[in-house]
């Protein structure tokens, strides 16, 4: 039996009187690549923050690796939306990635040789080792996204959380990016949140549709009805064959 990494049980989250999540239950096992789709404001980021222990549920329980989320952070690689940070910040690619080693280093201590080796290996994985001395803002959007993935990988995570990783990344970079995830999912469980339904379902092996409530959760064959219930409007439905293709629903 595969190990259970995340268990959310009947989660309710309220922000300033607004309900962000209503009765969400979800499990993620080792080897899963879970794609969570849903409209903006549907609670996708909140769900990730619950798993990280950055948001507390008003009702329900969260357990990550069998512990409280705060205690499991060391084993989670978090990749925030890359357009949220200040691009002109004076930090190099290498300095950004080695931040991921903090959990294995600690307060006042300097990064050791092993930390540098791990950080470089993570940069190598995402194919950006030669850029390690460049200022982060000098890289393209897709490359910045990969730097943040390298930073998450440097923590040696058991679970990778990706928040809208393909937002503001051009399509060539997206393809490369999904190929990278394809490779990573062999050894790390992944939860990826996105509004990009098309790209997400080709690569994931489980899917969840979230619009405050979890409309669907399971294997990746979603029906048009489920998507409509999630987005509250007709959407493109993706069919999976030997060649992934899209079926346009009439509307």
């Amino acid at each position, binding site marked *: 039996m595969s190990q259970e990494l995340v268990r959310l049980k009947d989660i309710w989250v309220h922000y*300033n009187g607004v309900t962000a999540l209503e009765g969400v239950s979800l499990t993620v096992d080792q080897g899963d690549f879970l794609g969570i789709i849903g409209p903006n404001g549907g609670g996708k980021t909140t769900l990730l923050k619950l798993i*990280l222990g*950055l948001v507390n549920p008003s009702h329900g329980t969260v357990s990550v690796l069998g512990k409280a989320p705060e205690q499991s*952070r*060391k084993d*989670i690689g*978090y990749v*925030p939306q890359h357009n949220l*940070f*200040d691009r002109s*910040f*004076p*930090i*190099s690619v290498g*300095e*950004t990635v080695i*931040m*991921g080693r*903090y*959990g294995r*280093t600690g*307060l*006042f201590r*300097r*990064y050791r040789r092993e930390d540098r080796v791990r950080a470089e290996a993570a940069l190598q994985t995402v194919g950006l080792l030669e850029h390690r001395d460049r*200022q982060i803002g000098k890289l393209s959007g897709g490359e910045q996204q990969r730097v943040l993935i390298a*930073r998450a990988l440097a*923590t040696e995570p058991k679970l990778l959380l990706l928040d809208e990783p393909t937002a503001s990344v051009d399509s060539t970079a997206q393809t490369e990016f999904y190929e990278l995830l394809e490779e990573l999912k062999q050894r790390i469980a992944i939860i990826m949140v996105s509004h990009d339904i098309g790209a997400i379902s080709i690569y994931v092996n489980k899917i969840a549709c979230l619009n405050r409530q979890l409309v669907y959760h399971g294997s990746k064959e979603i029906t048009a009805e489920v998507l409509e219930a999630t987005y509250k409007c007709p959407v493109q439905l993706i069919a999976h064959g030997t060649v992934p293709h899209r079926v346009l629903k009439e509307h």
Partner: protein
Amino acid sequence: MLEALQYDFMINALLAGLLASIACGIVGVYVVTKRIVFISGGIAHASFGGIGLGYFVGISPVIGAMIFSVASALGIGLVSRRTRLPEDTVIGILWATGMALGIVFIGLTPGYAPDLFSYLFGNILTVPRSDLILMAALDAVIVITVIALYKEFLAISFDEEFSTVTGIPVEALYLLLLSMIALTVVVLLRVVGIILVIALLTIPAALARQFTSSLRTMMLLAILFGAILTFGGLWVSYLLDLASGATIILLSGIAMLIIIGVSRLRRRVQAPAKETT
């Protein structure tokens, strides 16, 4: 200028300028990159309450300012993080309340408040030896703290959320960073005064940022620029018989304008060259 060096007060002034440059170079880099300039302004102005308290209870106004600036730094940090009040509202309230307290305390103090003007606008020529020793001690605290916690401060300045996830005690370190701004305000108090502190916290660091994209280099450059600007300002104020604090700030503002102008020009010259490659 050289003949001026035979005076003790001139030597003290140069030492004060150097000590001020170290504090504002290091801490200013965090203020500029983390975009907490307005918080720094709030901390600086709130410290006026402490200057008033110093006069009122008969202790050194500098010590009073130190107590008030650290307390207001912690206050702004805690209230803005733990309550739903918007940060800039908290800053605005503390900013004005601190100054109001200072004015009330000075009003309650019998007689005349000597040096009041120099606490507001600085007077680098009258820094007493005791304050130089305090400035050096605060510089030492700042330098040791930043060396010990360099990687933590870099992480929380760049990405607080990731820092929290990775286990850095973000709130405690943020409060420590704000306290270091408070100490820097005290170091700069005698040189440029609380009203003008904000310029020395931002201009040398902003100038340094034009030349490097490494935080460490930026700090060293900011110290260098701070020293050049305070010495230059002191020299100009000596030649033209102007207020030293204000002259230092004006010189800094002019330097900033020139650097921005030059870098814009350079970009305009480089842009067509790039298109051909």
